[in-house]
């Protein structure tokens, strides 16, 4: 899908440091409506920090972030809630509410906005759980009783439960077996194409990136060093991208390993 003229998410010159450590150093990123953008990059380069800035969970030091043309930095809490109600998010570590059973986790958004009574919300939650390959018998368990991969899938069900316009997936397939990973990839593609939701996915899994993404962007040293169509990534001509997607030790990216 080609990006529409006005991007639904627009990030300009984003800077973020933690103390002396600069993590984001001028990130520029546009995601068009209905587009699926994948961000790749080494561990600790600030991919998660980027989406947390977009969601308003972290306050950037500098830069501009627009969602649907609205500047969201320094927004009043009520407006922020309105913007967030159209956004879904899968956290890297799932971040399920362990005081609530699985189904209430999935139905949390529905219940908190008062859009359904508890019985209907429960049915809806079970429906969404089925989408991510989880059985209805899990609905009343505590999230702590699930395996890591199952927790991730509950997190995914929660992220898509509210039929959001924009969804962030932070490493959706990490910790899943290859078959389940492919099911999740298909699910993300379906959410993106059938519902028309805009997706921003972080992943280390190149197979998944190519399958999910319309476009891929690579983050390195606080900047987007390459962005282009997903099928062009194999011949990007960028030595950093080449090294990353083939997982080579030799190349311009130096890992800080030397003792």
């Amino acid at each position, binding site marked *: 899908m080609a990006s529409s003229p006005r991007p639904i998410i627009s990030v300009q010159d984003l800077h973020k440091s933690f103390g002396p450590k600069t993590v984001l150093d001028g990130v520029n990123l546009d995601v068009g409506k209905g587009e699926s953008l994948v961000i790749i990059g080494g561990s600790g380069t600030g991919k998660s920090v980027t989406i947390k800035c977009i*969601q308003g*969970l972290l306050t950037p030091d500098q830069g501009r972030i627009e969602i649907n043309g609205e500047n969201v930095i320094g927004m009043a809490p009520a407006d922020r809630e309105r913007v967030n109600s159209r956004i879904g*998010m899968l956290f890297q570590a799932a*971040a399920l*509410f362990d005081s609530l059973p699985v189904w209430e986790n999935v139905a949390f*958004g529905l219940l*908190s906005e008062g859009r359904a009574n508890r019985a209907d919300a429960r049915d809806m939650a079970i429906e969404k759980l089925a989408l991510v390959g989880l059985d209805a018998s899990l609905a009343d368990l505590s999230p702590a009783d699930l395996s890591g991969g199952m927790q991730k899938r509950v997190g995914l069900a929660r992220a898509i439960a509210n039929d959001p316009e924009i969804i962030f997936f932070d490493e959706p397939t990490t910790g899943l077996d290859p078959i389940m990973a492919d099911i999740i990839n298909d699910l993300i593609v379906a959410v993106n194409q059938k519902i028309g939701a805009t997706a921003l996915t972080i992943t280390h899994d190149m197979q998944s990136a190519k399958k999910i993404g319309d476009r891929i962007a690579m983050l390195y040293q606080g900047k987007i060093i390459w962005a282009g169509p997903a099928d062009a990534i194999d011949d990007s001509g960028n030595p950093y991208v080449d090294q990353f997607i083939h997982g080579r030790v030799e190349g311009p990216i130096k890992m800080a390993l030397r003792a």
Partner: protein
Amino acid sequence: MNFLQMIGRVFLAFLATAGRLSIFTLSGVGHCLRPPFYFRIIGKQMIEIGYYSLPVVGLTAVFAGMVLALQSYTGFARFSAEGAIANVVVLSITRELGPVLAGLMVAGRIGAAMAAEIGTMRVTEQIDALTTLSTNPMKYLVAPRLIAGLTMMPLLVLVADIIGVFGGYLVAVHKLGFNPSNYIQNTMNFLELSDVVSGLVKASVFGFIVTLMGCYHGYHSKGGAQGVGMATTNAVVSASILILCSDYILTELFFSK
């Protein structure tokens, strides 16, 4: 000089904490007053504070009452003023020991649990997840706990008062040989409504302090299991200290004329 630098740094850190705590308190109280209210969570917290703390607080109160009767007897016997025991027991329990002991016990039980729970939610990004589900964490996590603390502590202390006075009665009647009806008569004669009410007001304030400290330290915890552990300790220690300080201030306000 290094020493001055250190003082300056500590002072600045103190100011920063005081500011953060003030903002947190104002925002928490603000959310207690404005809808939506999460009645399900308020109810759950009320049961946790009011009902499940009963055994601990009741046990503390009964022994406090017993030891008061025993101690005042050995003291007052020297002035042949044994008759004042009922008076001493009921006044100390309702005015001081009921609220303070219950406050300290609840600080250990509830304040610690709240700091640990909210702290874990912070470090596992559950609080961030609340925000992304357009739920304000101050409203969802903090306000219900503050409301429950404010309202349930007086009830808990009322029960503790009764149990404490009963503890004094047990020792006075069964060990020290007082006449039961005389003892009850003496207890009732000296007791004024203001004694009980002042104790209950204290209880409400202590309930607010305990839940506020639990929420505040949990909310601002960072750095994994160790951070949560530290938040828990800080919640209990700061709540206990604040209870004792505010107890003095409240007593001064109520009774100094």
